[in-house]
């Protein structure tokens, strides 16, 4: 599955902000970390703000804070602000309605349902655990690499 750019940026942004709900980060600070354009990120943050997942803070030191519930917000919640996931037409249905097209749609529908179920079961809180576990394994990997240098 390939996510649209806006969806990926939105996930990065809410993960960064929800890692510490007390912290305020500007679009530029988030953009710098992930190597993404502030202009594009600002549009994404605006959409996240309308959905109540982030809140903008004005004034000096302003920026954005996370305003959602990391234990309840799933990846699907974030992605569906920007694109549909596994919709009825997700596999494309150009051309005539034939038995071949219907059979293909059945298989694609099975994949879509699994995709939706997976994205809908991973909360931001769970993502933080995965990130932490990934970081630990990267550290271990680097540790091993260093010992063989």
């Amino acid at each position: 599955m390939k996510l649209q750019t806006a969806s990926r940026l939105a996930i990065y942004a809410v993960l960064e902000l929800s890692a510490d709900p007390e912290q305020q980060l500007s679009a530029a600070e988030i953009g710098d970390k992930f190597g993404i354009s502030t202009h594009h990120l600002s549009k994404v943050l605006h959409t996240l703000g309308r959905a109540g997942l982030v809140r903008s803070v004005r004034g000096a030191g302003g920026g954005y804070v996370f305003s959602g519930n990391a234990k309840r917000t799933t990846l699907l919640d974030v992605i569906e602000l920007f694109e549909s996931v596994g919709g009825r037409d997700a596999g494309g249905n150009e051309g005539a309605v034939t038995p071949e097209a219907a059979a293909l749609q059945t298989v694609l529908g099975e994949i879509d349902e699994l995709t939706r179920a997976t994205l809908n079961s991973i909360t931001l809180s769970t993502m933080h655990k995965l990130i932490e576990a990934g970081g630990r394994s990267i550290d271990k990997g680097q540790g091993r690499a260093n010992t063989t240098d």
Partner: protein
Amino acid sequence: MSETARNFEIRPAEFGDLDQVIALDERITGISKRDYLNDLFERYRTRKPDQRFFYVAETAGRVVGFVVGEIRAWEFGSEPCGWVFAISVDPDEREESVGSALLDQICDRFRQAGVHRLRTMTSRDNHLLMSFFRAHGLMAGPYLQLEKDLT
């Protein structure tokens, strides 16, 4: 036996717990499974106690959760692993780590028995349970469940 911060006791299920377990399961699933749960208790508390586990969470004499699982070896070609077949928590007692305490308890037993992989199966529509297992680090495994309508 273990006590959590909110004074839940996690302990092996006893025959006297069964009515409360059955009522809790019915409240959550909407289906009465008295015969099935009676049979489950018989099999999981009286036979192969080093491989089959049935625990309840109790507070103030009330059963507020339960977990059932067992070690299975070489099914579908899989090396021995611990399966969790059922885990339920009273909706009024959620957000208090009862489910986590139950899962931790059965995982400890699996580890003590030399098993280092946990498996379960859940309906993909059951977002609550899916999210619970995901939050405890369970990921998609190497097997896919397949089925066919035989009517």
